[in-house]
């Protein structure tokens, strides 16, 4: 009787779970998805699938040909496309290793609400997948590109995103922002590199960000504006700012550490935001004749850089406030945090009130060093101004 009970128990343990054993070589590892709008209004979905090929002797450097291939399918909805894609693959499509989803600018302007829904259901579609807009092109073209560092080219995009110099938005970030009050999502953008003429050796570069409202792309921010966005939203890890000096020449600065503070003030009917930006870093370039050993000169440089940074951020703010009229930074959210009563009043009309909001920017930079050489390497020739 005891053994019988034991056997029943053992069967409960063994037979309850679902049998989902799949050998690793029966899977097709999808590394990226691109969503484009086809000519007849359907969605054209392309997958980049990695080809596991042996890397004997460890000579992985120098990407070999055909480390990946692309399968595409067209359809009305995600589920139909998935079914069509699976029919083209001998192995089970495995999406957990997908690192990036590209959406063409065309499709994004058309609206991505239908496209994004399929990524929210299956847990194998990871929410940590990055999502990017392809500026002025098709996602499919980005997938086709080979990247010299990586066997699977799209992994390079992931590495670029992780490095934190540009706007990196994952599906999760996008959904959270979308679901939050008083803020609208933004997505990083990528474009084929305009300098590489040879089509076979084309690579891509990051190109700012796309501003969304209600799942529709309103427009794109350029790189300088994206820096402003990152700084104001406190996502900036490292960045470079350049300023023209009043006496000629340019100075450049590398930001290592940044901080921001948004202060809300409200007078009766009107909302006023003050953005206080902090930045620490070192000088990276100095083509002027200023000797930065002098504290006074350093102050000149500092104020010039602060002015440049302020302008950069203001340009960005003007663009979202006046041109796109969308609160991508989350000023509404700040208001909600600092003054919930006011927010309750403004909540429903925020989209129309935001363009009128008064936003001022204060920048405070701290120059921590000037690198290896103090002023300019051309010190002897230039007449240094003391």
């Amino acid at each position, binding site marked *: 009787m005891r053994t019988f009970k034991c056997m029943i128990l053992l069967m409960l343990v063994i037979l309850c779970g679902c049998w*989902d*054993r799949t*050998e*690793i070589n029966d899977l097709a*590892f999808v590394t990226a998805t691109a969503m484009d709008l086809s000519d007849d209004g359907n969605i054209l979905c392309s997958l980049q699938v990695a080809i*596991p090929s*042996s890397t004997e002797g460890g000579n992985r450097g120098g990407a070999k040909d055909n480390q990946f291939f692309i399968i595409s399918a067209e359809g009305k909805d995600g589920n139909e496309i998935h079914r069509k894609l699976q029919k083209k693959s001998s192995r089970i499509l495995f999406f*957990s290793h997908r690192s990036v989803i590209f959406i063409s600018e065309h499709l994004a302007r058309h609206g991505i609400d239908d496209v994004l829904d399929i990524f929210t259901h299956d847990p*194998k579609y990871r929410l940590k997948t990055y999502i990017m807009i392809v500026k002025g092109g098709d996602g499919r073209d980005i997938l086709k590109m080979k990247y010299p560092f990586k066997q*699977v080219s799209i992994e390079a995009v992931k590495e670029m995103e992780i490095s934190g110099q540009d706007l990196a938005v994952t599906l999760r970030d996008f959904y959270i922002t979308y679901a939050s009050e008083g803020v609208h999502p933004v997505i990083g953008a990528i474009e084929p590199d305009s300098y590489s003429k040879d089509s076979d050796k084309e690579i891509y570069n990051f190109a700012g960000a796309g501003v969304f409202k209600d799942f529709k792309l309103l427009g794109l921010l350029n790189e300088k504006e994206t820096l402003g966005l990152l700084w104001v939203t406190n996502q900036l890890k490292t960045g470079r700012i350049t300023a023209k000096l009043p006496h000629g020449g340019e100075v450049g600065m590398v930001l290592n550490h940044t901080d921001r503070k948004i202060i809300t003030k409200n007078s009766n009917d009107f909302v006023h935001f003050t953005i206080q930006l902090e930045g620490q870093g070192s000088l990276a370039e100095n083509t002027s004749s200023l000797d930065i050993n002098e504290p006074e000169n350093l102050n000149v440089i500092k104020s010039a850089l602060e002015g440049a940074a302020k302008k950069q951020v203001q340009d960005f703010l003007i663009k979202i406030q006046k041109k796109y009229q969308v609160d991508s930074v989350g000023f509404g959210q700040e208001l909600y945090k600092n003054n919930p009563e006011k927010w309750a009043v403004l909540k429903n009309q925020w989209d129309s009130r935001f363009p009128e909001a008064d936003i001022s920017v204060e920048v405070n930079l701290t120059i921590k060093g000037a690198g290896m050489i103090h002023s300019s390497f051309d010190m002897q020739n230039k007449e240094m101004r003391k």
Partner: protein
Amino acid sequence: MRRFGSGNFNEYERNIKLKSNKLEEDHKKEFTSDIEQNEKIIKETFQDCSDLEYRQIEVNHHIKWLIVYIDNLIDEKMLDEYVIKPMITTRAKTEGDLKDELIFAGTTNISKNVSDIVRNLLEGYAAILIAGSSDIMTVAISGSVKRSLNEPSSEPVVRGPREGFIEDLSTNISLIRGRLKTPKLKVEYITLGELSQTRIAISYLKGVANNSLVDEVRARLDSIKLDGVLDSGYIEEFIEDQPFSPFPQVHSTERPDVAVAELLEGKVAILVDTTPFVLIAPMTFWAGLQASEDYYIRWPVATFIRWIRFLFINFAIYAPPLYVAITTFHQEMIPTDLVLSIAASREAVPFPAMIEALLIEIIFEALREAGIRLPKQMGQAISIVGGLVIGQAAVQAGLISAPVVIIVSITGISMFTIPRYSFSNGIRLLRFPMLFLAGTMGLYGIVLGFLGIMLHVTSLRSFGTLYFSPIAPLKLSELKNVLIRLPIWMKFRHSNNPSSREDRLEDLSGDT
């Protein structure tokens, strides 16, 4: 107390009883005063034993002596020097007188009982029969062959004593006594094995070892009934608490320093004649992971090495199952670059990952077994066949994938970091069910297996001590001897069993 699971045991016990009844009759038999009759009794007992020697000696033409002994068990030189020579020159007429004359020959016994004399003869005594007396004297002049003390091959150390136990019980006891020069070290002899009559010594430090532990060991040993004891392994199987556990519950060692260290911790050593392996009870899980050298090298290093062992014992059990589970169920857990290279290496392999891992594991076990059984001169052949043929050729031929070979090699190395041979054997066995669980249920299976192992280990007891103590149940004060090895001056080594420590303190104060 003890559970004997097999039904065969009862039958076995019955046979033993029948045999012992017959021996019982022999016990009562006594010698007569007629020397010819006595000779006949001995000859009958040792019928067909050609190695029994008789030497008749007549002194002064009227005293007739008969010396009986077993050839090869006694030292001929000693016989001539200490028995025959004094006999010829003596003026003694009775055994009593003769005993005084032969006093320098070592142990002498006088008995009428046949079975006593027979046992003495078998132990290497010479029996001296004298005409007209029923008392028979035996003289110990045994001269058996002994191995010299060598370094124990199963527990090598870089630093530490190099002496190991040998097959001779008295030598082994002297090795322990040499390290513990105190009358508190007790040695109790018992004899086990109806036919082998093997001497067993129970050794402990009075006042340090828990009295009830000693009683328990004694009781368990007394209840053993078997024909012959060829190694302490026979005894171990009888006295362990849970005979179906893969973990050894009695510690066996070849090193006198280990035995003494354990005695100092209040444990009981069981020495068995004819084997160099001494049993020590109780044993804990952690004892299986400690080498004697831990206490001879400097403590930071010893602690580090201990943690390396903790890490690798987990590797030994879980590395292949984890590989199988993750590559067949949870591919999303592997970093993308790694998953692609694993997939690439498995591209040509025809078997599922579990079969592949099982295959390599079994081949590895076979290699290991072959390596042990093979004559030493052929050891190289094994490493060539194992390393080259299986490692390289099979991967190149696409029969197995390189990651599996790497994983199994790591497991193999992990096995050898476990210092206790019997303990590592237990671990070795656990790998296969774990592999099976991993291959059928993935990480869920591994967690089930892990829970099973933990449940078993934490409920296991060895002579009343919980096997997993002091981790479970947690005793913080004793962790310093388990998780880390504190400097010796910072602690006084004591037992893992707190009751014995208290006992000892009381006993010590009572003794003085």
